[in-house]
């Protein structure tokens, strides 16, 4: 580890911290339907969308109406992308004449983008037409991010409102998020990305003869416009297979920093928006603090493990940090930082190959996802996942002192705890059960790239990442029909089981009366609460996943120290 490496992480985090309040304040204005400085330009577009879409702006929805609208939109979005991928050969903007995608891969990819996962069993540069990229994948990058944020906003309204039955209008939240939050940032930062060297064109790949006389195809496409929303919406699906490791998706250390900031910015801003909407910004900062501590814990371990390097390789006579699967322009610190940030959130973009990380370096992304991606998290999903943990923590704290627990003036009773537990328990069930099935079936073992404990880690990582809607991979694991279908199903339930559970939680809270805080009320904006919250998150995660992680990365770490290979 070097001083400069730590400076990178600290400067990055300081920028995120500085952006949290302005972004959160802006989003609070947007979702409370107030005028913003962009309204003169965007309000007319917004009204056109409502008119053409048949949306009544002032229609409020109960939680199940909100959930049904979200599910209906997702169903249409899934069918649309599936059909697009299955017919791209006959559609325009396909200069490479790429074929239609096979059925099970199209199924997997459509579910992957629908759920904000962006798991990549496809290789963009050799299987996706430009039309599929921009109007299929990048469109999903916008709307799936907006679906996550809209859901979180609805849950927050449930906490903020008293004795009402509605949580807002899904279509309005979706539209306002896309137009007022995602689009303006994408335009500005997207142009910056082009200036830094990211391609933005519709050319066919240009075959050139290199200086040494080899033929090389220079790939192209509308990359910058897709790259920016890929990070901002914590989507993570690369235009090309190597994702943000590829120099055309991440040409410089500066684009790398900006990509990292994009990944964290909205999730961080949402914590402030949350505090603002529940009329106590310290509640938002308490959640931010818990997230920040978990972030630095993860980064420290990953950076340390990668900087130490591979002792088996050192034995061959070379020295240095683990550069296998990393890029020279980023080096160890920026790669470890990216791996931590991309799995703290549900982004899943990578600037280095996690499969080639040291065992404990690879454990950090795995554990980040297993804890439920609640460190800023997926846009929206991070906040609502964290709120489920907060409700659980309040409940446990209540049990410890023997009082009916309250959160922000609402009594937390059986129904709320049931929905919160459901949201929290989806992750372990969907992660561990399919992993167990996969290791028992030949099809589950057929496409492994590594043997021994690392092979097990590849499987565990695949199901952890897909159900957490992350999308990063121990990418050695190849696609086959078994994984196409299993991970597809996993992504679907990982997204919507949690989203519906938290909407139900929001609905239950919205209907409650506010009770006055008393001397016995447990404060939820204090350092003690932050510590307790982290404790609950880590205990739930560790109790559930430690046995599985012990069979993968942890045992591999011990064996690597002994020089054992597989």
């Amino acid at each position: 580890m070097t001083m400069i490496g730590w400076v990178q992480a600290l400067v990055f985090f300081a920028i995120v911290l500085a952006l949290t309040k302005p972004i959160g304040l802006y989003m609070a204005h947007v979702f409370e339907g107030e005028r913003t400085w962009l309204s003169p330009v965007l309000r007319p577009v917004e009204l056109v969308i409502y008119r053409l879409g048949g949306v009544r702006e002032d229609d409020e929805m109960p939680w199940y109406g909100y959930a049904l609208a979200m599910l209906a939109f997702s169903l249409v979005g899934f069918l649309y992308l599936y059909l697009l991928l299955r017919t791209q050969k006959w559609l325009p903007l396909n200069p490479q004449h790429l074929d239609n995608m096979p059925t099970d891969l199209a199924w997997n990819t459509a579910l992957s983008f629908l759920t904000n996962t962006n798991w990549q069993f496809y290789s963009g540069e050799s299987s996706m037409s430009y039309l599929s990229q921009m109007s299929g994948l990048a469109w999903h990058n916008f709307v799936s991010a907006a679906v996550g944020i809209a859901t979180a906003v609805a849950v927050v309204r449930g906490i903020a409102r008293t004795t009402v039955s509605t949580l807002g209008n899904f279509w309005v939240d979706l539209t306002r998020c896309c137009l007022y939050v995602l689009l303006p940032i994408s335009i500005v930062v997207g142009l910056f990305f082009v200036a830094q060297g990211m391609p933005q064109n519709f050319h066919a790949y240009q075959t050139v003869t290199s200086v040494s006389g080899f033929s090389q195809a220079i790939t192209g496409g509308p990359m910058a416009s897709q790259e920016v929303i890929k990070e901002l919406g914590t989507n993570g699906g690369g235009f090309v297979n190597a994702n943000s490791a590829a120099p055309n998706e991440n040409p410089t250390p500066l684009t790398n920093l900006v990509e990292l900031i994009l990944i964290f910015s909205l999730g961080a801003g949402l914590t402030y928006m949350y505090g603002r909407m529940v009329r106590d910004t310290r509640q938002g900062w308490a959640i931010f603090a818990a997230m920040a501590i978990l972030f630095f814990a993860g980064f420290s371990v990953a950076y340390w493990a990668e900087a130490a390097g591979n002792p088996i390789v050192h034995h061959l006579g070379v020295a240095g940090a683990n550069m296998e699967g990393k890029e020279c322009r980023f080096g160890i610190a920026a790669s470890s930082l990216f791996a931590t940030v991309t799995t703290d959130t549900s982004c899943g973009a990578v600037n280095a190959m996690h499969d080639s990380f040291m065992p404990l370096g690879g454990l950090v992304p795995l554990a980040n996802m297993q804890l439920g991606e609640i460190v800023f998290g997926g846009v929206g999903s991070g906040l609502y996942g964290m709120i489920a943990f907060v409700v659980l923590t309040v409940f446990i704290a209540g049990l410890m002192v023997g009082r009916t627990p309250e959160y922000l003036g609402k009594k937390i009773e059986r129904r709320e705890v049931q929905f919160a537990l459901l949201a929290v328990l989806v992750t372990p069930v969907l992660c561990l059960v399919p992993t167990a099935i996969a290791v028992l079936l030949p099809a589950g073992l057929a496409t492994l790239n590594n043997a021994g404990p690392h092979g097990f880690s590849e499987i565990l990582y695949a199901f952890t990442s897909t159900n957490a809607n992350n999308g990063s991979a121990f990418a050695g694991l190849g696609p086959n029909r078994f994984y196409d279908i299993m991970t597809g199903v996993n992504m679907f339930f990982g997204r919507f089981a949690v989203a519906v559970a938290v909407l139900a939680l929001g609905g239950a809270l919205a209907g409650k009366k506010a009770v006055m805080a008393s001397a016995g009320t447990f404060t939820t904006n204090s350092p003690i609460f932050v510590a307790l919250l982290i404790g609950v998150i880590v205990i739930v995660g560790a109790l559930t996943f430690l046995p599985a992680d012990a069979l993968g990365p942890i045992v591999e770490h011990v064996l690597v120290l002994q020089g054992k290979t597989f």
Partner: protein
Amino acid sequence: MIKHLGVALRVTLVSVVIFGLAYPLAMTGLAQLLFPWQANGSLVVRNGNVVGSAIIGQLWTQPQYFHGRPSAAGKGYDPTQTGGTNLGPSSKKLIAATQATIAQVERENPDAHGAPPMDLVTSSASGIDPDISPEGAYYQAARVAKARHLTLAAVDALIAAHVQGRTLGFLGEPRVNVLELNLALDAPR
């Protein structure tokens, strides 16, 4: 639900037009207007021929050129098949490949001092990494100098002139763009 599906269909169509078509097309127009060289792939032209992209690494085999890192992209540096080896730290394949690469790099650079730097013997993440570390360049300097009948000092000086430092002094790592360095070697002095 039927009512929701109708709205969903219409909102999907409208939003695809705005975010899936108008946005990328407008961005392409702006990019082509403001930053045409970058937007079109940062192509490098020599004697009227395009010889590659400034941001994409290429395959080098001759002794008179600096070599890039091992690549897992297709048959090497294929931008249509980007990716890494995805071999884990305890992989027999990884260790055997690394051992073979070390032997090869040492064989190609008999006059270099010490062991090769780590980046020269490990595969990059993208398979099209355009850079090597400054140490990786200096390690190859003696070989390049010999093949070109230059002094080692002259080659070292050329490397020094092409080392890109950390951005803003703290971002990323110092590096050398291999294509840029090799073109400078070929340029008439």
